[in-house]
């Protein structure tokens, strides 16, 4: 597999104005994420995880520096192209699942495909297939509130995969789930990552996530503290689980 970079950030800085005082959340981030990689961004609360995450997802623009998604500088995109990027290139998974409550699981997964221009029939078939692949073939017609947290997150994963994106961004995907369900979701993400060769980027402080990540980026106070490869991490996980 060719090692193409799917996401590249160059000197990304972001500051927010808190009244009259600028708050520098990100202080120059350079990362390169390859196609098919599974990346975890770790760091304490307030370290800028979510901000960086929004930047990579095209939900926010950097104050300084550049973010390239699939070699396209997102600062150059207009609203329409950004929406298209979100629709076709990026799948989002949230801590709070964020399914549309009035729609069934099937319709939730269909939604991005409808936006993407697929006909209702095609979207329905594909959506059914995706829900089956995440293990929810039996529950396609249930509303989100009739599903458990783990099942809702599975629907969200199916929805994120709807338009065959190149990247899946997962913001604390296991934050609202118990240990066992969280593990199942992580394994499912890993499976999808291998199967569909989609890059997965998670912002998390769930240490279970380390086990499956190809690389872990540690963030602290808006800068990258260190980047660790898989081999160096496994020992640490042992420690944590021993607690």
């Amino acid at each position, binding site marked *: 597999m060719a090692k193409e970079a799917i996401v590249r950030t160059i000197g990304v800085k972001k500051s927010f104005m808190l009244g009259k005082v600028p708050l520098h959340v990100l202080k120059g981030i350079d990362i390169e994420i390859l196609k098919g990689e599974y990346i975890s961004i770790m760091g304490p609360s307030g370290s800028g995880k979510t901000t960086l995450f929004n930047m990579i997802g095209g939900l926010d623009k950097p104050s300084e520096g550049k973010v390239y998604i699939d070699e396209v500088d997102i600062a150059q995109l207009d609203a329409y192209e950004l929406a298209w990027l*979100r629709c076709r290139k990026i799948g*989002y998974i949230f801590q709070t699942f964020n399914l549309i409550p009035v729609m069934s699981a099937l319709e939730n997964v269909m939604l991005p495909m*409808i936006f993407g221009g697929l006909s209702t029939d095609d979207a329905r078939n594909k959506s059914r297939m995706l829900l089956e692949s995440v293990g929810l073939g039996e529950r396609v017609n249930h509303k989100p509130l009739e599903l458990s947290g783990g099942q809702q997150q599975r629907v969200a994963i199916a929805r994120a995969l709807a338009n065959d994106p190149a990247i899946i961004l997962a913001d604390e995907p296991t934050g609202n789930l118990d240990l066992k369900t969280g593990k199942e979701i992580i394994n499912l993400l890993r499976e999808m990552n291998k199967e569909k060769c989609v890059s997965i980027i998670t912002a998390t402080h769930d240490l279970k996530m380390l086990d499956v990540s190809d690389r872990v980026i540690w963030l602290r106070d808006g800068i990258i503290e260190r980047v660790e490869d898989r081999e160096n991490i496994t020992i640490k996980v042992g420690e944590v689980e021993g607690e």
Partner: protein
Amino acid sequence: MAEQKKIEKQLSLPLKNAVQMSVRNMKVRFGRAIIITTSILLGIAFLTSVRAGNAFNMSLILNGPEEISSLLAVDIAEVNARQGWLVSLSLLVCIVGIINAMLMSVTERSKEIGTMKCLGALDKFIVELFLLESLAHGLIGSIAGAIIGVLTMTVVYLIQYGGLIFQIFPTVVIVKDVLFSILLGTFLAVVGALYPAYISAKMEPAEAIRREV
């Protein structure tokens, strides 16, 4: 290549799906839909009843017996002016009610809107959904309101003047009034939803999702 990419980059929300989504939203938030529709219904019922009453009066003056028409023709101009004020005020209250209810609906659904934007919804899809919903409220409310207004006035005049009413029934004028009321009611409902729809469409997805209500 560039050409091809342009074609691929289509985002769409077919009307059928949009209507489906709006209908579902109204079903789920039925209470709010009822409140908005009722507010339009009342405003339009008032407007239609006033206009129907005027139509009856005019018809009585023109075609009715002498003693009634001379009695009615006295201060019709002043009465009309006063009624005009009342109707305008009632419609104003009605439109403010719609804006308020729709704004609340936007706040309540900010997370949903943010999510849809993350999935690739354009601003105009969001506006479309809100306007469709409002269009439905407006149509249902003003049709019901117009019918209620005409019926009420017919009953009132029937009690006052008896069967004479049916001899001079101003059908053409009343049909025109009803159509006017329905158009106006629907228009007002859509206008009332414009600002809330604009606000919701302009929300940044990241922020909309983060917002807890």
